[in-house]
């Protein structure tokens, strides 16, 4: 630990009270997990206050005090919880020893303007804590699903074994169920088939529509745009009801008159319906990128003898690609997440993941849904990270950013 900066020393009572409050909150969590909140609260507060008192009052050597706290808390964690307690204790030790001296030695003022009043300093940090809480509020529903998906029981419940970090409370059986259960596998395959194809259809049609609408000679532009993006505005259940009847007739025609296979027609129906939902996103994002598009470039290309198709692929497409890709991403997610329309338009053969999750949640609360949710979250994160890396790489290659 590098030589720390001492701004000034706070009175012990301030440090010890603050640390006591922190200890109380942590104790409360452990107390609730083990059956009694108040005992945990009081015990945690006293425990942390005692540690801070010993560390600040008795010790003149900060490094020694901090190491001792870490080692002590690690051992306490190991004694009471086990191997995972070792890790938890270490984390708590690292944090609390840093926090203790941060408070005690007034280090929190180090990066702030010296003329700020105590109230302003407090607000400076309160503001950050509030932001952190809002962030937590947004992310917790997603995070809480992940440990639950490793539940050894068939309920959405944190069992006492799980809270004690007992390995017996955890299992991979819900993941196993997902990978071995026919219904889940079929719906996963369906999703992987329907979403990409629907994305390709909506990206192609949406991009063409956006380019057409950006031409100056197109009449009734606003009216046409409004109609094209209406699937995004009309409540989904209304679109779905309309689509159900429309595609039933289309399907009957394709099967009976054209003589196509029933299953194939089923997929075509769902893909078309999902494309309609995805097109507005593509139109909006591509239109937005086209606003900054310099039309003299296409004229220059034409001047040099390129036909419109070549101009489109060589000149226009590379420049509006970011809009096309993000529109495609939205279209993909729309189709991949969609449950209402597919339940109306599809038959059991076209059951997608969200459909399976929906019925699973209604008819049997099984943590397999959570396992699937976790897998999907991981896939989405991987997808977004890959896209972002690719985008940065291409920017670097094209020299658009100094990075």
């Amino acid at each position, binding site marked *: 630990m590098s030589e720390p900066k001492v701004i000034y020393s706070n009175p012990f009572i301030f440090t010890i009270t603050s640390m006591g409050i922190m200890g109380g909150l942590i104790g409360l969590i452990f107390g609730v997990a083990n059956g009694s909140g108040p005992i945990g609260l009081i015990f945690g507060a006293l425990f942390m206050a005692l540690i801070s008192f010993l560390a600040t009052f008795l010790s003149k050597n900060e490094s020694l005090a901090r190491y001792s706290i870490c080692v002590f808390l690690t051992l306490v964690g190991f004694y009471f919880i086990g191997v995972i307690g070792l890790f938890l204790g270490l984390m708590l030790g690292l944090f609390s020893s840093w926090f203790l001296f941060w408070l005690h030695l007034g280090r929190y003022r180090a990066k702030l303007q010296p003329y700020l009043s105590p109230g302003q300093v407090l607000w400076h940090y309160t503001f950050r804590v509030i932001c952190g809480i809002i962030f937590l509020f947004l992310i917790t529903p997603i995070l809480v699903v992940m440990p639950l998906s490793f539940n050894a029981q068939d*309920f959405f*419940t944190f069992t006492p074994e799980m809270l004690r970090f007992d390995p017996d409370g955890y299992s991979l059986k819900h993941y196993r169920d997902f990978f071995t259960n026919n219904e889940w596998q079929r719906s996963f395959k369906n999703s992987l088939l329907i979403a990409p*194809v629907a994305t390709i259809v909506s990206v192609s049609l949406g991009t063409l529509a956006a380019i057409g609408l950006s031409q100056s000679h197109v009449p009734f532009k606003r009216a046409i745009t409004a109609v094209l993006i209406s699937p995004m505005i009309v409540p989904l259940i209304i679109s779905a009801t309309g689509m159900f009847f429309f595609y039933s007739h289309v399907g*009957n025609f394709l099967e009976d008159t054209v003589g196509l296979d029933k299953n194939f027609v089923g997929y075509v129906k769902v893909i078309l319906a999902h494309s309609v939902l995805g097109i507005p996103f593509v139109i909006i994002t591509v239109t937005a990128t086209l606003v900054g598009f310099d039309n003299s470039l296409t004229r220059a290309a034409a001047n040099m003898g390129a036909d419109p198709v070549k101009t489109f692929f060589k000149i226009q497409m590379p420049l509006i690609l970011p809009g096309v890709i993000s529109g495609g991403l939205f279209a993909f997610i729309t189709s991949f997440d969609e449950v209402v329309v597919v339940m109306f338009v599809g*038959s059991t053969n076209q059951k997608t993941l969200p459909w399976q999750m929906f019925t699973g949640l*209604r*008819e*049997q609360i099984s943590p397999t849904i959570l396992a699937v949710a976790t897998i999907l979250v991981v896939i989405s994160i991987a997808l977004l990270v890959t896209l972002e890396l690719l985008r940065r790489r291409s920017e670097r290659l094209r020299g658009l950013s100094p990075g």
Partner: protein
Amino acid sequence: MNFTKTIMTTASAALISGAAFADGHMSMEMTIVSWGGAYSNSQLRAYHEPYSAKTGVTILNDDSSSTAVAQLRAMNEANNITWDVVDVEAAPAMQLCDEGLAMEIDPDTMLAAAPDGTPASEDFGDMLVSECFIPQIVYSTTFGYRTDLVGDTPPDNVCAVFDTKTYPGKRSLFSVPINQMEWALLCDGVAKSEIYDVLATEEGQDRALAKLDTIKDDVIWVSSGSDTPQLLADGEVIMGATYNGRLFSLIEEQKQPVAMIWDGQVMDLDGWIIPAGLSPERQARALDYIMFATDTQRLADQAKYISYGPARASSAPLVGKHADLGIDMAPHMPTAPENLSRAFLMNYDFWADYRDDLDAKFQAWLAK
């Protein structure tokens, strides 16, 4: 440009694979609609797997029974019926039959006779409540309670639900009038035989709701059979209503500290219907499946996986042990004599007539 080529190749590959994927699953398949969860699983193991092995037909499961009536109406409207066999309760089956959405069944020619030659109409007996309904199981809706949260005197009477003094804490009930109103009147002192007469009157309905008013603040309203097991497992309710098979699974398979009350449980039937208007070949396949899946042995087999009583008289002696747990299943059946003694039989005809009115009234009361 590379990007374009990639997109085009992916698109065509996806389309071709899509077509190939779709072509792989040709006509030898049927869609069977049921309730999902442990119940569908018992049907899968007792009926679907042996039937597929015997005939080579692929069976697709659709867990949509809870919305079957509305969906069948819409499918009929759009002339696009995608289901072959549908699992529904007795009352919706009567409704579908009245509306002409289900096919009429002649038990003696379309269903298998008992092994001793008794015709199906006699073997099923009173269970054949509608011309379209092919009975499968008898189930009951009853209460489970947390053995560790109800104090020293565990409840043995359905009216414990209304006794918030002895059993303080939350209880879960279904947010529908069926069952809840019968229980309210039963615990308000109406004799079992008179409940439906009382419930047919305006005063009787108000009386049932007034009784429910006394516990309204202590009730968590649920809408699906899986909610109460989850609430009991969490300890969020001390007792709650659900189907006896779900409670069996909660107690015996999940080993939760829960027990059930075999008193005043409402008995109901569940079975198959075949949608009207299928093409002749699909109808023939559906009938072939039904003939197989409702014979004496198959109905008894289902009881190996879930604690619902087979609807055939001839299946009862064949009920054996649970396939995975090795527990003797007969005492867990709603049809077992000791469980049956204090049961309450639902009047399907009453609900077929009064359901819409009472539903509206009950929902209005709930919203108050």
